[in-house]
């Protein structure tokens, strides 16, 4: 099954990102929303983990949440930016949604 994983926590505050990366399978999709978008920034100590995930999973970030936080200009290569319409499309395209709260 194709699963869309959502992560809404800063990786510096909680382990939601780590758990998502540990338990998501190749071919699944990961979307960063809310404070989760900080994981999509280049140059952080989590950037290598994200780049590794991009190799076998599709990684997305919610643009409005990046814009709001002033970090839209620093996105790791290979991450796709979506808006709320794109979020809806991802939910529809995948078989189920798993929130890493």
């Amino acid at each position, binding site marked *: 099954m194709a699963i869309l994983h959502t992560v809404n926590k800063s990786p510096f505050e909680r382990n939601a990102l780590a758990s998502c990366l*540990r*338990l998501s399978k190749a071919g699944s999709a990961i979307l960063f929303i809310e404070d989760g978008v900080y994981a999509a920034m280049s140059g952080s100590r989590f950037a290598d983990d994200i780049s590794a995930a991009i190799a076998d999973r599709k990684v997305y970030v919610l643009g409005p949440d990046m814009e709001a936080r002033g970090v839209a200009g620093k996105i790791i290569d290979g991450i796709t930016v979506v808006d709320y319409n794109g979020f809806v499309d991802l939910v529809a395209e995948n*078989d189920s949604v798993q929130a890493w709260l």
Partner: protein
Amino acid sequence: MSEELQEGVVKKMMYLNRKAPYGTVYALESLEVVLIGAAFDQDVSLAFVDDGVYQILNGQNTTKDSGIGMKDFSPTYKALGDYDITKLYVEKESLEERGLSADDLMDLVYEDEDDDWAEKPSIILVSREELADVMDEQEVVFSF
């Protein structure tokens, strides 16, 4: 149950528990959904990952006299078998990184009606790869 409910729809549903009990209400209110959900005859499993493993630790005690004054809801996990909730997946790695093993968990069992009501363990210890496979099969995941 609503009359609108389609007859015979059985989905694979997982309750994903990643939070410790008492400090926040998520564990307790997740359990309330599990109990209500048992009446819907779905293919239900629970997963205990990260701090969620603390929910099913042995020896929880919250007595009103000397304790924190909150309801100790840990006995409810022992009743899950009576509700036909018999698949409790616990991620080994989450236990190990917390210095825990299966011996630290409550003895959670169910009686198998297909096997002369033999008592069997409900806890299924799984590796991260095994748990990822189980999660991948789920049609609905409740995360709280």
